[in-house]
C-alpha cells in the first residue's frame, strides 16, 4: 500500500513538461494513424439540424463568420457544414462578418465547397457569386452593426466585399433589413458573436436563428437554446463532428474526435492522480 501511495505521490508531482508531452502524443498519434470512434448526436445538434431543415426551400439566409484563424479548428468545420446544408436546400446565402478576418474564413469555406467541374451537390457545388451567395464583408462596430442590419442593411453595407454597390446587385433586391431573411446563423468565437446576434438581431426581429460556438462559450450560450432564442447549437468541435455526421459529409471535425478523446483521458488520469496525491500528502502531513 505504501509503495502504491509513493507511486501516486511521484505521479502527482511529475514535471509539467512530461504532461505536455503526453498530451501532445495523445493528440498526435490518433491524427497520424486515424482511429474511428463512434459519434453520437446530442439533442442540441439535432435541434440545430432540424432548424435548418425547417427553413422553407430556396430562402434567403444570413450567415455570419464571426471568428478568425485562432478558433478556426472549432468553428470552420461547422460553417463549412452549414454552407453545404443550406446550398443543398437551395438557399441563397448572404455572408457578413463581425470579425476582421472572418472574410478570409468565408473565402476559405467557399473555396472548400466549390467545384465548378464535378459538383456532387452533397459536399461540393457549382456556386456562383451574386447568384447563390454574396459576400457582404466585414464592418467594425460589433452590436452597432447588427442593430444597423436590423433597421437598415443598406446603411451598413453600401458596397459588398468586392466594392460593388449593393443597390446594383440583383441578389440584394428586396433585402432591406434582417426581417427579409428567413434565418440567421452565426459561427461565433466570442465577442462580437452569438450573444450580440441574439440580443440585437434574433430577439428584436423574431427571425429564427442558431449558432455554432467555441466550447468555451457553450455554458453561457446554452440557456438561449432552452428559451428558444436559439434553435439548437453546435458546441465546439464535438458539435461540428455530430453535425458532419448528420449531413453525411465526414470532415476534419470527425477526424479530430479520436485525438480529442485520448487527450481527455490523459487529462482525467492526471486530475485523478493529482487529487489522490494531494489527499495522501495532506494525510501524511497530519500524521507527522
Amino acid at each position: 500500500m505504501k509503495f502504491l501511495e509513493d507511486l501516486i505521490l511521484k505521479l502527482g508531482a511529475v514535471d509539467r513538461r512530461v504532461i505536455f508531452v503526453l498530451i501532445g502524443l495523445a493528440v498526435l498519434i490518433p491524427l497520424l494513424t486515424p482511429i474511428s470512434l463512434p459519434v453520437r448526436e446530442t439533442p442540441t445538434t439535432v435541434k440545430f439540424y432540424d432548424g435548418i431543415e425547417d427553413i422553407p426551400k430556396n430562402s434567403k439566409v444570413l450567415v455570419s463568420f464571426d471568428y478568425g484563424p485562432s478558433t478556426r479548428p472549432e468553428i470552420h468545420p461547422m460553417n463549412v457544414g452549414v454552407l453545404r446544408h443550406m446550398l443543398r436546400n437551395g438557399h441563397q446565402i448572404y455572408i457578413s462578418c463581425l470579425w476582421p478576418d472572418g472574410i478570409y474564413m468565408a473565402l476559405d469555406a467557399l473555396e472548400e465547397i466549390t467545384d465548378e467541374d464535378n459538383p456532387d451537390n452533397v459536399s461540393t457545388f457549382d456556386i456562383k457569386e451574386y447568384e447563390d451567395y454574396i459576400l457582404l464583408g466585414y464592418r467594425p462596430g460589433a452590436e452597432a452593426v447588427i442593430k444597423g442590419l436590423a433597421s437598415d442593411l443598406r446603411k451598413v453595407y453600401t458596397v459588398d466585399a468586392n466594392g460593388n454597390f449593393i443597390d446594383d446587385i440583383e441578389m440584394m433586391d428586396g433585402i432591406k433589413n434582417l426581417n427579409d431573411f428567413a434565418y440567421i446563423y452565426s459561427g461565433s468565437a466570442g465577442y462580437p458573436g452569438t450573444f450580440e446576434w441574439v440580443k440585437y438581431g434574433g430577439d428584436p426581429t423574431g427571425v429564427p436563428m442558431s449558432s455554432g460556438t467555441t466550447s468555451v462559450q457553450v455554458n453561457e450560450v446554452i440557456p438561449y437554446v432552452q428559451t428558444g432564442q436559439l434553435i439548437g447549437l453546435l458546441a465546439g468541435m464535438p458539435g461540428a463532428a455530430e453535425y458532419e455526421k448528420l449531413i453525411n459529409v465526414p470532415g476534419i471535425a470527425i477526424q479530430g474526435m479520436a485525438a480529442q478523446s485520448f487527450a481527455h483521458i490523459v487529462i482525467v488520469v492526471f486530475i485523478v492522480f493529482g487529487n489522490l496525491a494531494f489527499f495522501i500528502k495532506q494525510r501524511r502531513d497530519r500524521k507527522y
Partner: protein
Amino acid sequence: MSFSAILGAWIAAFLTLGIFSYLYRDNPFYKIAEHVFVGVSAAYVAAISFWTQIYPNLFGRLFPKDGPLAFTGLEFDFNHEFNILYLFPLLLGVMMLVSVFQKFNWMARWGIAYTVAIAAGLKAFGYLNSNVLNQVKASSVDIFSGSLPLFSLGGDSIFNNIVLVIGTLSALMYFYFSKEQTGNFGRFTRLGIYFLMVSFGASFGFAVMGRISLLVGRFNDLIEYSSADYNYATLGVLVFIIVTLGFWSFQNPERKEN
C-alpha cells in the same frame, strides 16, 4: 505548389512551433512569435477598420460625389448622400487622436464619454430583454405538468423542471447578503453553491475541450506542412528550433527553472 504557399507554410510552422516552445520555457523563439502576432494583429485591424468603415462610411458621407464639399477636391463615391452630422464623429475621432499630446489629453474624454454612453444605452435594452426577461420567463415552468414524463435525460420532464427551479432559486439566494446564511436558509444557499460548482465544472470541462480542439487544429496544419509539397516545412523548422534552443539553453543555464 506556389512559392508563396510554401513560404507561408514555413512561416506558419515557425510561428506555431515558436509558441509551443514556451512549454519548455520562455525563450527568444516564443518572444519573436508573440511580438509578430501582436504587431500584425494591431496593424491588420487598424488597416481593415479604416478601409471598410472610415473610408466608405465616414468620408463617403462627408465627401460624396458631387456633394457640397466637392470643391475641396475630395470625392468618394459610395452611393451615399452628404450628411453633415458625420462631422461630429470625425471631430470626436480627431480629438481622441490628438490626446497623444499631453496638453490635449483632456480631449479624449469627450470621445470616451460618447462611446461609453452609446454602449451603455445600446447594451441596456438588449441585456434586459434577452438575458433577463427571456430567462426569467423560461425559468417559470409548470413543474407538475401532466403532459411531461417523470424523467428524461435530454428533454423536458417533471424531474428536470424541479431541478431547474430549485437550482435557480438556491443559486440566486446564495447572492442574497441581507440575511445571514444560517439555519434552513444557510442549507438552501449551500445547495446553491453546489449548483454553481456543477456549472463551474462544466465550464472548465468545456474550456479544456476547446483548447484541445485548437491543439488538434494546429497539429493538423503541422502534419500537412510536413509533407514534401511544402518542402518538409514542419520538420525543418522543428530541427532548427530544437538545435538552436538546445544551444541557447546551454549558453543560458542561469535562467533554468527549478
